[in-house]
């Protein structure tokens, strides 16, 4: 559908092909990606990943700058703060010696991903044709125990999408915390996390939006042998949020653990999709979602694990729990296992219920007002998804 690419090009900030500082071979690659994308269908309810969301919202034109109501990550806790803004990416001058950060266009491989083959990821794939900024971060094994990096997205342009592409590489044995915080802007971000052997990434993703804001993200993790990823997601509010976490293992004995808290109210829609490919033996994944939907908001939770033939010793846990706070709210919750191997340990569960009324009454009976009691029970519900 030719219109799709033109629509998206026109709606991007800035238009990458007009970016004069862009290396020529990169521009060519992007042009090629755009040509391919023209043949793809637009996102819509025919796609699994978009079945429960209204993709037409992507074209909305908000008039005023939108800013997240919460800007909570304490920048003081971070040794390095990378800011993505209308002016491009800013990186502090004095980087610690365990870290290198360069603009994504200067990096030797602003990663073209095999994911782009599935039309389910059409919105994320558009990123490779349209991205205009981002960083390539390398963390060495010398990173100190408290090493902490903040990626802050603070774009003022309200009506156009800003496409950001980041690459984060952890050397073998490296340990680091990466916090990603969306402050403002309509960001479509693709993050490629490459975790070396025995390295450990802890990550916090905070996307708390006002009722007009939108956000699209793709995280692609590749874990080498004995690597670990522990990733915590807080998605709250917004007009449309669409997150995909995509996990590949390239070795054995690695572990991916994620906890998502999704809170939607008003007209919000949040999609939170985690796909784990157990293509190799003896890896573990544990995916926990706790979601709440109020008013006429909706949430789509999907945890999918694909275990390839021969990937024995894979361990998979999928635990999705959901609470509807109003009659008009909607939650679709889908744990999925596709197992082609023989010896696999897998557990999955999904429930949709309401707030524990008995517990709310217990709190009230001690003098706690109803609203606060409900809030406390929501916090209680969220706890199980706190992984780091």
């Amino acid at each position: 559908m030719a219109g799709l690419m033109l629509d998206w090009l026109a709606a991007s900030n800035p238009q990458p092909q007009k970016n004069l500082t862009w290396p020529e071979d990169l521009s060519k690659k992007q042009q090629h990606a755009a040509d391919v994308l023209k043949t793809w269908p637009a996102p819509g309810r025919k796609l699994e990943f978009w079945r429960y969301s209204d993709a037409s919202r992507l074209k909305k034109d908000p008039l005023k700058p939108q800013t997240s109501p919460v800007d909570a990550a304490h920048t003081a806790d971070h040794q390095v703060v990378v800011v993505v803004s209308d002016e491009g990416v800013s990186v502090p001058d004095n980087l610690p010696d365990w870290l290198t950060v360069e603009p994504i266009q200067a990096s030797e491989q602003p990663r073209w991903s095999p994911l782009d083959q599935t039309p389910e990821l059409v919105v994320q794939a558009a990123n490779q044709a349209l991205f205009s900024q981002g960083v390539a971060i390398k963390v060495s094994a010398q990173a100190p125990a408290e090493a902490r990096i903040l990626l802050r997205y603070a774009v003022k342009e309200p009506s156009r999408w800003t496409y950001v592409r980041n690459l984060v590489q952890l050397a073998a044995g490296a340990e680091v915390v990466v916090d990603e915080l969306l402050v403002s802007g309509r960001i479509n971000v693709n993050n490629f996390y490459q975790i070396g052997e025995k390295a450990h990434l802890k990550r916090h993703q905070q996307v708390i939006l006002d009722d007009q804001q939108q956000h699209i993200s793709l995280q692609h993790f590749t874990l080498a042998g004995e690597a670990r990823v522990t990733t915590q997601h807080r998605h709250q509010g917004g007009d449309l949020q669409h997150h995909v976490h995509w996990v590949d293992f390239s070795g054995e004995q690695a572990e991916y653990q994620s906890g998502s808290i999704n809170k939607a109210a008003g007209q919000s829609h949040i999609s939170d999709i985690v796909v784990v490919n157990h293509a190799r033996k003896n890896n573990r994944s544990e995916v926990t979602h706790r979601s709440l939907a109020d008013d006429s908001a909706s949430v789509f939770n999907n945890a999918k694990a694909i275990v390839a033939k021969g990937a024995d010793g894979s361990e998979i846990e999928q635990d999705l729990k959901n609470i509807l706070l109003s009659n008009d709210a909607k939650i679709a919750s889908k744990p999925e296992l596709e197992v082609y191997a023989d010896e696999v340990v897998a557990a999955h569960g999904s429930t949709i219920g309401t707030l524990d009324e008995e517990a709310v009454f217990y709190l009230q009976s001690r003098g706690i007002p109803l609203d606060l009691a409900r809030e406390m029970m929501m916090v209680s519900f969220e706890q199980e998804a706190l992984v780091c």
Partner: protein
Amino acid sequence: MLEIKNIHAKAGDKNILKNLNLSVKPGEVHAIMGPNGSGKSTLGNLLAGMPHVEATEGSVHFKGKNLLELEPEERAGEGVFLAFQYPVEIPGVNNMYFLRTAYNAQRKYRGEEGIDSAGFLRMVKDKINKLHMKDDLLKRPVNVGFSGGEKKRNEVFQMAVLEPSLAILDETDSGLDIDALKIVADGVNQLRDSNRSFIIITHYQRLLDYIEPDYVHVLADGQIVKSGSKKLALELEEQGYGWLDA
């Protein structure tokens, strides 16, 4: 203090309380005994304002106010406290934080100043020592992983901190060994004074060896069928509830 008149009440869609009358004056301790399923918990739950327990007839006044019109948290603010027969587990909410939130919410309701966490901690430690309980209770999430006895003690501890003017204890003695029973009784006796009243719901007479009631009532099939002094409890112990069917 508490005037219950001709109360008929439903739990869910089942009629449980049938023309129940009870009057409790300041400083009095009333014991309510009766067979399983007679409506004892329903009475406690009605007073505390539990959802799905609803009066269909009659009235309840507490310190002159129409209690049934108040929200559960307002009743607590007025001084009503229910020690639950089955205390609820609340994962991820620290017991101490929960209690301070409750304490300050009640103070706010009464137009009093809140207390800071340091001051609250001092007060709470003092109470827990007086009750001969362990203070690791404070650090744990509310009732999560507590044994049956710990849950009951936690109810008594909450009562001691919140200092209600009417405390209803719903089978707080059930499942307790004799030492735990003494701790519970001690908690009640320490709070006992001329302005504070208690309704002690119990299945067994033995708690009343430690908490001396002013009145004992027998609840059967949703109404009080017999009232008397402490001696009634002893008689019930000997005779059981078989005579009710006669």
